[in-house]
């Protein structure tokens, strides 16, 4: 199997779907001639033409609104937000129209919105956010957050196939940093199934997206101290894999929920609450959260480092729980 970067895997999956299914098209700012801000769709317009690789005006509202209409009429649009942060302009179309359409009228809305998200490169407050928690609160949407190239391709194809609006949160910091073997043929990864990234006995770390890799580095360090860390990669936060989380809790009895998004009302709170409700008698310590603080993402590199959970933070958090 070829080794691809996370970004190449997304590109590969998208291209494969466009070749396979003529209903699939992409639309977004600079996705055509320029090949996308991050070059996910480089060469796409040459291969598929300007009618299936559409350069959109600077209006997320128009992009998602148009996609919703096209989907209702039977197409399978894949929209790109240049940065996930800008999706707020498309809030109404996603939350009020796309998420409710199936419920109100029975019409499926098979759109995918790709959301380059996350920080780690001094992008500042407008280009670094992780807005998955907002949308995880909206029944009717699906929110996918892959952490590996293999999952990125398989989940993107599953998202395109899915009859519901799917928000695909691809982490920018992983684009060229993470590589992995990815099958050449088409495959899907089921949305809503977590993946055990690392097996361990002492503490469970529940996380997703880029934080999976932060947790993995921490787990390597902790192993040297004799602490065995289990890492569960949720892969999607809506729907999320309660069974897998509860199974891990029952095994280790100590849980750290880790996410890059801010603290208050972050999706980690939902996980912690569910654990308290459904696995209370299996807990041997408080459910801990490590998240970004409740503040916009800073530009300054040292501040951003203090803001985004780092390997050392996870090491400390897991260590404290292990000795609790």
């Amino acid at each position, binding site marked *: 199997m070829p080794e691809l970067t996370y970004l190449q895997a997304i590109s590969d999956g998208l291209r494969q779907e466009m070749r396979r299914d003529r209903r699939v098209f992409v639309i977004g700012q600079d996705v055509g001639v320029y090949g996308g801000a991050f070059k996910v769709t480089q060469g796409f317009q040459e291969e598929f033409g300007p009618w299936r690789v559409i350069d959109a005006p600077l209006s997320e509202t128009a992009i998602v609104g148009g996609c919703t209409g096209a989907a209702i009429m039977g197409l399978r649009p894949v929209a790109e937000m240049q940065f996930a942060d800008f999706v707020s302009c498309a809030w109404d179309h996603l939350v009020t129209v796309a998420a409710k359409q199936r419920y109100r009228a029975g019409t499926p809305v098979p759109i995918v919105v790709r959301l380059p998200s996350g920080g780690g490169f001094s992008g500042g407050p407008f280009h670094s956010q992780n807005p998955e928690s907002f949308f995880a609160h909206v029944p009717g949407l699906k929110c996918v957050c892959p952490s590996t190239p293999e999952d990125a391709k398989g989940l993107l194809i599953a998202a395109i196939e899915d009859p519901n609006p799917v928000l695909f949160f691809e982490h920018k910091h992983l684009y060229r940093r993470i590589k992995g073997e990815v099958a050449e043929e088409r495959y899907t990864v089921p949305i809503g199934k977590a993946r055990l990234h690392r097996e361990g006995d002492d503490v469970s770390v529940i996380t997703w997206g880029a934080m999976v890799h932060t947790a993995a580095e921490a787990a390597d360090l902790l192993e040297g101290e004799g602490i065995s860390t289990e890492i569960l990669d949720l892969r999607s936060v809506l729907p999320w894999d309660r069974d897998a989380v509860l199974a891990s809790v029952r095994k280790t009895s100590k849980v750290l929920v880790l996410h890059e998004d801010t603290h208050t009302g972050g999706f980690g709170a939902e996980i912690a609450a569910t654990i308290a409700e459904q696995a209370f008698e*299996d807990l041997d310590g408080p459910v801990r959260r490590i998240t970004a603080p409740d503040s916009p993402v800073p530009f300054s590199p040292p501040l951003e480092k203090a803001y985004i959970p780092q390997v050392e933070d996870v090491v400390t958090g897991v260590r404290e729980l292990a000795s609790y």
Partner: protein
Amino acid sequence: MATAVVEVVMPQMGVSVSEGTVLKWLKQEGETIAADEPLLEISTDKVDTEVPSPGSGVVTQILVAEGETVAVGTTLAVIAAEGAGAAEPTPEPEPVAEPEPTPASAPAAAAAPPPAPTNGGAGERTFVSPVVSRIAAEHGIDVSGVPGTGTGGRVTKKDILVYIESGPPAPVPPPVAPPPEAPVAAPPPAPAPVAAAPPPPAAPAPAAPAAPVAPAAEGELVEPMTAMRRGIAEHMRRSLDTSAHVTTVFEVDMSKVVALREKLKPEYEKSYGVNPTYLAFIARATVDAIRDWPWVNAEIRGESFVAKQHINLGIAVALEGGKGLIVPVVKNAEGLNLLGIARAVADLAERSRNKKLLPDDVQGGTFTITNPGGWGAIVGTPIINQPQVAILDVEALVKRAVVIQDDRGKDVIAIRPMMNLCLSFDHRLVDGAYAAQFMKQLREQLENWGEENY
């Protein structure tokens, strides 16, 4: 240092309760406790319950040992506000060479040891996590005997798993056989009212329940009487001494109820999560019959008879392992339909077994139903629950061959689900004919239960 001292007293768990027994101390002397954190478990003749701490601080003295029974209002323990120093009220024989830190001349005092951070003897091994608590309960382990390696000596899940795997370190008393079949008329326990022995001098060993145990001969098993058992004994004896007990037995053909229950059961369970038990049907029919025969729902008060407008149905619930009996009350049952009664009975039974009943739940009954039929009993002569005047005993539902009339009025033998209902009533107030008419109506209601009639 201003020492805020809080005394913990035996609480009044209901109007008629005058004393309570300390079952278990959840904190030992020297341990810290937060306000409202459970401090001890007590047992009264109404309910068993936990007593929360009235303040936060350190438990400096425990004045009543486990197993002792004391009057309401008796001081059970003393809690000193945090920082007040655990040793304060205990006149420790050795006044350890701790020179009174005279003020002034500070430099010398600097050499004194730093103030001990309320290091109350055994340490602060207080918190038992949910998972440890569950594992301990499943294996019948006393967590206080497990060596802890967690924060502050807390017992972690690993600790208790290791403990289970390797077994307890020291020999423990052999597991006692299940509850003795204590004949109520046992010889009076030796008068050993344990003159409130001074609490053992802060022995860190797990406090063995101090109980006034009569010496056991070989082959005997002696257990101190619990407050509940004493309450039951006194109550039953007093009832027989008070009421003129008569029991009447009625046979009831339950075919219609059985059929209706089969029909309702899936719906009730699916929609309401409640099992429509036979007991619920009978309770519902009893309430209706009482409306027409109100003197079975009454009491004798002095020279008067008092009929009750409200029907508060006591439901006798046996505690597991022969540990006693409790009679929680479905209040105002006259306002409940079948579903309401089924739900109320299920809730009370559940809370009885989990010790979650509140004192109010066991008071104010006006008529009692007891239900030994579940174990196969077919006839009983229950004792009236004073000051009530009647108690209904629900016996086993059994298929029997009975003679009935077929459509053409011909006698035939049929197999029918039959149940005996026995009513003990107080002949001082209720005469045999009245009781029989009440029972006749109850039987007719059960035998002719229409679908609309619930």
